[in-house]
C-alpha cells in the first residue's frame, strides 16, 4: 500500500514548503544547517582547488613575471586615481559641509571574499562566499566586484554567506542614469535587470549606463549596476520598460569585494 505512504509524504512535504515559504525557517536555521553542509561543500570544491593550484604551479615564471609587470603598472595607475579620488572626496566633503548636507563619503573598509558556489537556479540567483559573521558580515551588506555591483548578503552564518544577486527576482535597487541623473527602480528578472514603470516620455536610451544612487542605504553611491540594452514600449501603456544587462560578472567571479557601507563598530574594522 505504497500510495498511502506517498500521500503522507506529499502532505508533509507540502506542509514543510509552506512553513518555509511563510516563516523562512530555513533561513533562520541556516547557521546550523551550514555546519552540516559546509564540510560537504568544502570536499566538493577540493578538486577545483587542486586543479587551480596545479595550474598556478605550472604557469611558468615568464607568465608570472608578465602578470607581475601588469599588476605593478595597474597599481601605479590605481595609486594615481586613488590620490585624485581622495582629493575629490576631500573637496566634496568640504562643499557638502558648506552646503549643510549629509556627508556620505566612500567606505574605506573592504574585504575580498572567495566565491565557493554559484547557484544558477530558476528560483534564486545567489552565490556563496567564504566570509561569515566571524569576519563581521551582516545581512544587507553590499557586495561588489571590480566592474560593479554584484548583490547583497541575504544570509550569513559563521563561515559563509549567501549573496543575493541583483538579477534575482526578489531583488530591487534604486539606480541613477549616469547621463541624465534620472532615477529608476531596477528589479532582477532572473537573467538581467528590468526597469519598470519608467514614464513614457522619459529620456532613456539604449546604451545608457546605470549607477547606484546611494538612496537605498544598502549600496554605496556611484557604482556601476548595468547598461540599458533594450527599451520596450507597448502601445497603450503609460509606462515603458527597459532591459538592463548587469555590469558585474555575476556568475563568473572567483573573488568578490565585501564593503562595509554602514557605520559599524570598531571590531568590524579589525576583523581581518
Amino acid at each position, binding site marked *: 500500500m505504497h500510495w498511502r*505512504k506517498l500521500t503522507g*509524504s506529499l502532505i508533509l512535504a507540502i506542509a514543510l514548503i509552506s512553513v518555509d515559504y511563510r516563516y523562512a525557517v530555513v533561513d533562520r536555521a541556516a547557521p546550523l544547517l551550514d555546519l552540516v553542509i559546509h564540510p560537504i561543500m568544502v570536499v566538493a570544491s577540493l578538486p577545483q582547488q587542486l586543479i587551480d593550484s596545479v595550474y598556478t604551479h605550472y604557469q611558468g615564471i615568464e607568465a608570472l613575471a608578465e602578470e607581475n609587470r601588469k599588476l605593478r603598472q595597474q597599481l601605479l595607475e590605481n595609486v594615481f586615481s586613488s590620490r585624485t579620488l581622495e582629493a575629490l572626496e576631500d573637496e566634496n566633503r568640504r562643499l557638502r559641509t558648506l552646503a549643510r548636507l549629509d556627508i556620505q563619503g566612500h567606505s574605506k573598509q573592504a574585504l575580498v571574499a572567495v566565491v565557493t558556489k*554559484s547557484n544558477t537556479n530558476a528560483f534564486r540567483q545567489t552565490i556563496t562566499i567564504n566570509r561569515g559573521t566571524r569576519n563581521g558580515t551582516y545581512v544587507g551588506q553590499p557586495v561588489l566586484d571590480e566592474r560593479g555591483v554584484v548583490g547583497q548578503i541575504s544570509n550569513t552564518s559563521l563561515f559563509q554567506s549567501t549573496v543575493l544577486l541583483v538579477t534575482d527576482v526578489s531583488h530591487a535597487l534604486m539606480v541613477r542614469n549616469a547621463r541624465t541623473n534620472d532615477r529608476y527602480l531596477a528589479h532582477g528578472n532572473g537573467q538581467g535587470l528590468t526597469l519598470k514603470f519608467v514614464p513614457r516620455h522619459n529620456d532613456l536610451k539604449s546604451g545608457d549606463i546605470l549607477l547606484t544612487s546611494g538612496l537605498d542605504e544598502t549600496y554605496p553611491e556611484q557604482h556601476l549596476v548595468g547598461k540599458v540594452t533594450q527599451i520596450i514600449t507597448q502601445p497603450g501603456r503609460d509606462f515603458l520598460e527597459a532591459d538592463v544587462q548587469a555590469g558585474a560578472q555575476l556568475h563568473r567571479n572567483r573573488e568578490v569585494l565585501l564593503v562595509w557601507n554602514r557605520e559599524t563598530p570598531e571590531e568590524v574594522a579589525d576583523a581581518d
Partner: protein
Amino acid sequence: MRIEQWRFYQALSLIAATALSAWPLPEGLAPWQPHWIAMVMIFWVITQTGKAGFGMAWVAGLASDLIAGNWIGIHIVSYSIIVYLCARFYRTLQFSGSLETSLPVGLLLALHLGYLHLLSIFLSNVDPGLIFWASLPTSMVVWPILYFLMKKIPAGEPGLP
C-alpha cells in the same frame, strides 16, 4: 539490531552524489550537471525494493533543496513521486538491461524537471527556458554507466521485496 550492510553504501553514495551535485561547474556547463542525487535514489529504490523508500526521498530531497537554495520541501515532493513510481514499476526497471532503463529513468527525471519548471513559472514568474532541460540528456547518458558501476557494490544486487 544489526544494520544491514547496504545501508552503509546507501548513505555513502548519497553523500557522494550530494558532493557531486554541489561541485561548482563553469557557468556554461552548470545547466548540464546530471541529477546525481535523484539517480542514486532511483538506483536504491529499484535494487532494494520495499526497503529503500520514502525516508530516502526525504533525505535526498532535503540535500537537493539545501544545495539549490530553494524552499525546503520542493524536491521532496517530486522525489516522493519518483520513489512511488519506482516502487510500483520496479520489475520493469529491475530486470531490463541498464541501457533500456535509461528511457524510463529519463521519463521520471522529465517529470521532475517539468514540475520544477512549472513551479518556477508560477512561484517566481521566471521562465527558465529550454536550457533548464539540459540536465535531462546528460543524466540519461550517465545513468547506464552509474547503474553498471553501482551494481558492483556487493549489496547493490537486485533483491526481492
